[in-house]
């Protein structure tokens, strides 16, 4: 044991010395701004993760082709969060300590973002995420104001649901939520917004994943005689619920998040079952030139349509907003960049849609970058407020009727 203790103290001393080493060792190579692409390449986020990662790399290439930002090339180091907080933390540690990145982009699930944000705050670097949890907006997570969210919060989704509910004239809504942060976030957001309008929710049910049947859950909700059921659900459970509901034969309308009520759902249940279901999704800025540019690159990189992965449009925007802020700051200091992120993305200013365009316009004055995922305007919490498309499923097709802005 004694040798162990001595060895241990020796190792400890050596390690502290190395880490406390002068900043020369930690300095970045000249002319490079290094960012970490920390995406859910494996695990539950895998359907999106690799596309997200590819768009970070592709956007960085575009920035570099336009001469870089503040005279520096953007260099990307990629890591996988495995959609797990533990793996995410280790990967972030590696990015920060080994690769010395100056910003981390692309964390997806709320669990990973919440676990990584203390590290980026400590290292005093920027974190850009696509997570939904409301906790990310406020301290302690966003104590330093260095965290930016490119996705609508679950809360905002809920508010959109309430808006739609009112617009469609429903009077007796009930909710069904998948028991996880996002599912409950949606229905709770809805409940708060709906009750704030002076209305009542007739039933709330929270259900567990991976059950062989949701018939009893449905039975409870339907017993309250709602005219519409608002869900915070995913594709697999929504499939089961819709089939069981259809077989029950009780008429009711549905408002379902877009990641659950999508063409895959129609395929799984058949068009008859989901006829008239209202699907709500945050919509990309699809008419903007920035979206076109993104979609082109995305299709080339993955062979799929740009609309199929909204998160990769977000990571595309991350690199753009960050690079424009660097260019505007003329510096690679975090504080200077952070001060410019809202300035280059929010109004007032010349609307710009690409990096080259923005870089040019910056010479003349203020700019307002309009992203591919949204118009990209950050509020005081660093959250964007994208628009929500309201789709009605008709004859097996999702038809967009209107757009809601919160």
């Amino acid at each position, binding site marked *: 044991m004694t040798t162990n203790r001595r060895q241990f103290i020796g190792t400890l001393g050596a390690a502290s010395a190395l880490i406390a080493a002068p900043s020369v060792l930690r300095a970045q190579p000249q002319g490079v701004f290094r960012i970490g692409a920390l995406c859910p390449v494996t695990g539950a986020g*895998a*359907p999106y993760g690799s596309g997200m990662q590819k768009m970070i790399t592709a956007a960085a290439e575009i920035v570099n082709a336009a001469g870089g930002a503040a005279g520096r090339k953007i260099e990307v180091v990629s890591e996988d969060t495995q959609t797990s907080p533990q793996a995410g933390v280790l990967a972030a540690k590696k990015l920060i300590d080994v690769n010395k990145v100056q910003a981390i982009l692309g964390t997806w699930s709320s669990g990973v973002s919440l676990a990584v944000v203390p590290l980026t705050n400590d290292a005093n670097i920027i974190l850009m995420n696509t997570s939904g949890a409301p906790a990310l907006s406020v301290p302690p997570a966003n104590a330093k104001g260095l965290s930016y969210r490119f996705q609508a919060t679950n809360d905002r989704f809920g508010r959109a649901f309430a808006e739609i509910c009112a617009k469609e004239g429903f009077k007796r809504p009930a909710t069904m939520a998948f*028991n996880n942060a996002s599912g409950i976030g949606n229905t709770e957001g809805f409940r708060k917004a709906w009750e704030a309008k002076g209305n009542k929710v007739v039933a709330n*049910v*929270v*259900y*567990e994943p*991976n*059950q*062989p*049947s949701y*018939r*009893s*859950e449905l*039975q*409870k909700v339907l*017993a309250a005689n709602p005219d519409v059921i608002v869900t915070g659900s995913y*594709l*697999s459970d929504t*499939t*089961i619920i819709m*089939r069981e509901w*259809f*077989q*029950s*034969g009780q008429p009711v309308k549905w408002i379902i998040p877009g990641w659950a009520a999508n063409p*895959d759902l129609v395929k*799984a*249940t*058949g068009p*008859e*079952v989901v006829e008239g279901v209202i699907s709500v999704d945050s919509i990309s800025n699809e008419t903007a030139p920035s979206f076109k540019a993104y979609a082109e690159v995305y299709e080339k990189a993955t062979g799929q349509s740009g609309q199929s992965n909204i998160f990769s449009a977000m990571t595309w925007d991350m690199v753009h907003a960050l690079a424009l802020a660097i260019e505007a700051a003329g510096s690679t200091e975090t504080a200077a960049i952070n001060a410019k992120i809202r300035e280059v993305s929010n109004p007032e200013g010349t609307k710009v849609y690409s990096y080259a365009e923005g870089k040019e316009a910056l010479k003349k004055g203020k700019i307002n970058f309009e992203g591919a995922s949204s118009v990209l305007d950050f509020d005081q919490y660093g959250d964007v407020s994208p628009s929500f498309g309201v789709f009605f499923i008709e004859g097996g097709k999702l038809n967009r009727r209107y757009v809601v802005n919160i």
Partner: protein
Amino acid sequence: MFYAQLFVNGLFQGLVIGLAALSITLVFGIARFPNAATGDSMTLGAYAALAAHKASGSFIVAGLGAASATGIVLLLAYWSVFRKLAGRSVVALLVASIGIAFLLRAVLGVAFGHGQQVFQIPLARPYIFGGLRILPLDLQMALVALVTLIAVFGLLYLTAIGRQMRAVADNRDLARVSGIRPGRVMVALWLLAGAVAGIAGMMLGMKTIVTPEFGWEMLLPAFTAAILGGIGSPVGAVVAGLILGAMQEFSTPFVGFTYKIAIAFLIMLAVLLVRPRGLFGRVEGVR
């Protein structure tokens, strides 16, 4: 009526649990270890049934496909893994069965992807019996379960190999002395346990959707039913599955939908402590 409906919902869910428990109890009774690969064998059965259904359009073919694919894979698992562990401790077999569960899930995940798959079944409105809603699909399901049970019990009680299986379950040493070749019995056991798990998986898949992870979640309720029914008792497993399913659903107005999963655990604990041999079990203890 509300409660009666919950009860009926539960009974139909209990059918799947009961079949899964039947597979577990057969293995537990004869090979003498809790087979943790049962859940993922069900997943395999569901995928096999999906493939067979897509190819043929017939649910009978799908059922046969599920039963044979799962039976064969479990037999391979026996030949390549469990047989090599003969004479080792229960832990060794148990850990190995978890290894097989993980391996199965991984292979299915790579082969079929992580997206959900569904059986293309025409949906139909329920029959209403005195206010109770009963789905045609559930009745068909019950029929499938019934046919499976008849086949299993026929095999166990009317055939020579079935009698030998029961003899081994009763007393392995005695069975060996009386000239039963354990090798043949084990082959029959794994084919049968696999086929039953496969059918259970198909039924679960038809009721819900199929993903590579969905079978594992059935393990705890299935173990509970096997214990409640009395280890080694095929009748007990099925009856206990029905009871468990009904109790879980029936409890939801009182404990909520989250805690209904914990009900299985509490029942298991209570049975083990109060009546360890379950409803239909033999005297052989759990101590």
